[in-house]
């Protein structure tokens, strides 16, 4: 009898531990992420959203948002979420027509493609979202495009930058954009030549590429390989590493041995910081050129000013507060409300514009996903704080190469614009 009691006690203990850990979130599981801002984020259990192809019945309009609130790009996700909330709050404050109906549901995809798919499925099937915003990571975007397309729900990508995302079959050469995918963030189609142009102007002839094995890194490296010779640069070594790797000395040594004068980086903040650390260990200080992830606050925080000081680190950029009065005002407003720590200006500004654009579209055309999609292609006259341009049936990108420039990561953490000679 004693033994039986013990066994059942053990079973109860294990079950309760399992329950506890499931409730604890196992990393935010499938619970919507409410970060304490009351405005729009809360669990989606109200199923009255007028989603699908139903006519506007005057009910809730659900906008879905799935991106990384944890992991290496958590800062971008958080900035995007805050900016989206800000836009909605401002709309509600001025008593917009749909102010009481629009609701945004936020999910964390933890930089994991399978989690992203889970979130999107939930947004479409349970929460009845009529349009989906995000994600941050190109690998995740790529993974969720099929379900969104199948269910005819438009996806407005406000942070991810992988080239193939907005093009049919992932091929920009096809000239045909994916019907349901739009982008308000910088495409790597523009970031890559911006980086290459900068390197060319600084006299780089031989370079190495170092990328992570996620969709983001792979797409970026492919684009670099394709375009490098257009700028007189020879790629002498290609190396990669996995997300979570902490030592890139082997890969960098190979690049150094191959005679690279510079290294093109395509990865996220923690790995960028580790790359700089590894290069320092080798005593090798090539020029680094990378994508906008170099301007993630986390990159500077993890690398530290003393390390950044030893290098010349450049990145493709599209947003600095100085670039227009609207941009400066947004920057000030955002910092006042959410603080400057962990603020990723591009991600925030792009998300802010995306939300405002959607509000305009919803006011004009109502919550039918197909109509939203069509309107996005023809909508014009929207004024944003980024360089956002109207979409068309031939182009679902809004920030083009000519809107981008080279930025430099300074030793004090600030991003400055580089004037190329």
């Amino acid at each position, binding site marked *: 009898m004693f033994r039986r009691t013990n066994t059942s006690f053990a079973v109860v203990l*294990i079950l309760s531990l399992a329950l506890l850990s499931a409730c604890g979130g196992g990393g935010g599981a499938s619970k919507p992420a409410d970060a304490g801002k009351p405005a729009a984020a809360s669990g989606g259990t109200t199923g009255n959203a007028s989603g699908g192809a139903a006519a506007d019945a005057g009910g809730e309009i659900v906008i879905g948002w799935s991106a990384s609130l944890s992991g290496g790009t958590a800062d971008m996700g958080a900035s995007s979420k805050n900016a989206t909330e800000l836009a909605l709050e401002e709309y509600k404050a001025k008593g917009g027509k749909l102010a009481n109906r629009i609701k945004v549901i936020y999910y964390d995809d933890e930089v994991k493609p399978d989690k992203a798919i889970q979130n999107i499925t939930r947004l479409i099937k349970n929460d009845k979202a009529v349009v989906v915003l995000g994600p941050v990571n190109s690998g995740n975007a790529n993974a969720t495009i099929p379900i969104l397309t199948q269910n005819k729900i438009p996806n407005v990508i406000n942070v991810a930058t992988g080239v193939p995302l907005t093009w049919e079959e992932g091929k920009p050469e096809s000239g045909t954009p994916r019907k349901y995918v739009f982008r308000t963030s910088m495409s790597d189609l523009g970031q890559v030549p911006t980086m290459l142009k900068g390197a060319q102007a600084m006299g780089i002839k031989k370079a190495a590429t170092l990328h992570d094995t996620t969709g983001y890194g792979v797409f970026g490296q492919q684009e670099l390989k394709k375009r490098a010779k257009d700028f007189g640069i020879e790629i002498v070594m290609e190396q990669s590493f996995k997300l979570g790797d902490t*030592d890139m000395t082997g890969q960098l040594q190979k690049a150094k041995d191959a005679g690279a004068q510079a290294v093109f980086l395509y990865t996220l903040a923690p790995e960028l910081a580790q790359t700089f650390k590894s290069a320092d260990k*080798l005593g090798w200080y090539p020029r680094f050129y990378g994508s906008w992830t170099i301007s993630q606050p986390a990159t500077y925080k993890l690398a530290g000013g003393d390390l950044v000081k030893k290098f010349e680190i450049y990145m493709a950029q599209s947003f600095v507060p100085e670039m227009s009065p609207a941009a400066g005002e947004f920057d000030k407003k955002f910092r006042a409300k959410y603080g400057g720590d962990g603020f990723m200006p591009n991600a925030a500004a792009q998300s802010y514009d995306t939300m405002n654009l959607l509000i305009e579209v919803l006011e004009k055309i109502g919550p039918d996903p197909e109509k939203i999609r069509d309107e996005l292609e023809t909508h014009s006259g929207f004024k944003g704080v980024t360089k956002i341009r109207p979409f068309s049936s031939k182009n679902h990108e809004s920030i083009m190469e000519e809107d981008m420039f080279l930025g430099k990561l300074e030793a004090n953490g600030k991003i400055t614009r580089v004037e190329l000679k």
Partner: protein
Amino acid sequence: MNAVFQALISGLAIGSVYALIAQGFHITQITTNKINFGQGDFLMFGGMIGLSLVGLGLPLWAVIPLTMAAMAFYGALAERIAIQSLKNSVAVATIMSTVGVAIITRNVMMLNWGRDELRFPSPFAGKVVKIGTVGIQAHEIFVFAVSLVATFLLIVFLQRSKLGKALRAVAFNPDAAALMGISPRRMSALSFAMSAALAGLGGILVGPITFVAAFKGAVFGLKSFGAALLGGLDQPGGILAGGLILGVTEMLSALIDPAWKDVSPFMLIIAVLAISPSGLFGRRLIEKV
């Protein structure tokens, strides 16, 4: 060739961390015949606590013992809740409950410190030492040295000291040990406390190399367990060797293709265990669960 030497040195550095964590597996194994699968998360927990203490301005020589003490307490608590209460159940039950402890620890970290990766400043402030063309961080040399010293002290403690022998006696024959006046319950709690303290030390050591983040512990735990199996779960010296071999294998295979980095260590472990089931240097046949 340069790249190979560099990978070798880097591998020894990270391998010594795996070895340090793995010693924790050894202690609980020889005392209670149980494995704490939360060891990796304990590592990160120690790292986080250490980071907070450093943030308060405490010097490293104070942070290390304080963190180890905190982790020892946590380890004893985990033992009391997760192990002690299941002592008459099948072995699988304790494995599951240590996994549960691991998940709880991870989520406690996330709640307290957030989900981002955090920077852990090294007392050596990124200083790099050059051996020819190969660079190694002063911190990595420090980690290697500490790991060696800790292994040595552990062996001495377990072989020579009365308490160490008591710990080993309890696993060998709990009833006989009890008759000799050694409390198996106390030894069990002590072994978990020691193993958690070692993990905590490991966390502070590894923090500046890998950054600390709530979710990073699990992978460390898995690799360290692999190192322990590779070297022989009952031999601290073997575990040290196992950890170093694992680290070097990882780094060298990354040169061929980063995809091999996670695969090759485990392939090595399987190969070794197929030939010698108690690991490279192990002497006792470990009961397989």
